[in-house]
């Protein structure tokens, strides 16, 4: 039963995400693409792009999208997919919201305990590795073009990758602007200069 599996999968993703939106992307990549095969790596990359360019928390956007795609992938219709997207986005926040209510009501200062502080610091360090793995897993011909068969696309992709990376990391350019610019670059290069 796809809906039950969706519920359980996103329940886990939600409660184990201690690292923000990009960490959620890493967890969803593992559960949705690697483990369950609910979408291809390329669909996943496209989904991340869309989730960043539309309003709302990235974690919610990605969960909604992944729930939708998983149900479509299992062969169901669009209304079923819409149900799937609601199940995914609600189950991803269910346990964290309950946890938040319990903490707010009973132990407001739990995060100030030294052992909890050390645990959170360790988790923060580990999530750096988790997101690194997500990025490494995306270095595929699906997102860059094959270096041997689509050499031109591969070289252009590497240039776009480096330019985006430097602009985001070094110059703190907004991700939305970078996605729009790379989309325009894609249109000019592949649509106008090098039409297939």
């Amino acid at each position, binding site marked *: 039963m796809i809906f039950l599996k969706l519920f359980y999968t996103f329940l886990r993703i939600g409660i*184990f995400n201690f690292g923000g939106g990009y960490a959620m992307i890493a967890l969803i990549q*593992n559960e949705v693409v690697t483990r369950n095969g609910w979408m291809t790596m390329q669909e996943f990359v*496209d989904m991340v792009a869309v989730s960043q360019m539309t309003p709302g928390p990235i974690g919610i956007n990605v969960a909604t999208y992944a729930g939708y795609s998983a149900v479509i992938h299992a062969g169901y219709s669009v209304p079923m997919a819409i149900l799937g997207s*609601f199940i995914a986005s609600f189950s991803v*926040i269910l346990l964290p919201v309950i946890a938040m209510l319990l903490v707010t009501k009973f132990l407001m200062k739990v995060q100030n305990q030294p052992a909890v502080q050390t645990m959170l610091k*360790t988790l*923060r360090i580990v999530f750096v590795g988790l997101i690194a793995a997500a990025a490494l897993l995306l270095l595929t011909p699906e997102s860059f073009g094959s270096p041997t068969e689509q050499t031109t696309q591969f070289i252009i992709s590497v240039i776009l990758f480096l330019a985006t990376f430097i602009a985001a990391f070094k110059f703190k350019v907004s991700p939305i602007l970078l996605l729009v610019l790379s989309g325009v670059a*894609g249109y000019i290069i592949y649509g106008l200069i090098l039409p297939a």
Partner: protein
Amino acid sequence: MENSEVTKTNANSQADKKVGLPALFSSFCKIGAFTIGGGYAMIPLMEKELVDRHQWVDRETFMDVLSLSQAMPGVFAVNMASNIGYRLRGIAGTVTAVLGNILLPIVIIILWATCFKFLSGNPIFEAIFKGIRPAVVALIASPVFTMAMTANLNWRNAWIPAIAALLIWLLGVSPILIIIAAGVGGFIYGKYLERKGESL
């Protein structure tokens, strides 16, 4: 005498003034629907709406909720909404604020996902996404380095994320297993440091 009477009624009316659920909903709706770029991009608008405009929480409480929401698992913006909602109107407030925060984004994504199917064969659309895909990978790679700095990564602890990344990337180990191991390990290490009277 008269003065203290006035202050008393003022204080009473402050305490009695219940935040309306529709106002709570529309405020979080605005916060969710008008910020592109994820939860952290919402902080300035949240502060403006909740602290300055409606004065539902004071700045100090807002900062406390912010740090708690970062520490708790899940989606940062939703954690903020559930805590603030609870403070103002209990469970009903939580449900209202959270729904307000996520409903429009969900609807927009569903519309997108439905249109995406029809667009995916289009050559112009394909050209655009051929340019976007490597940029997305770069945008996921860049917070690795920013987070490494804010998480105080140094030569003594850099092996932890390195091994985590290699386990996931090359051996296909589940990230959730690694998170559990890190959480338990970190907590035990914290208790050990506590006993020794140190901190990390």
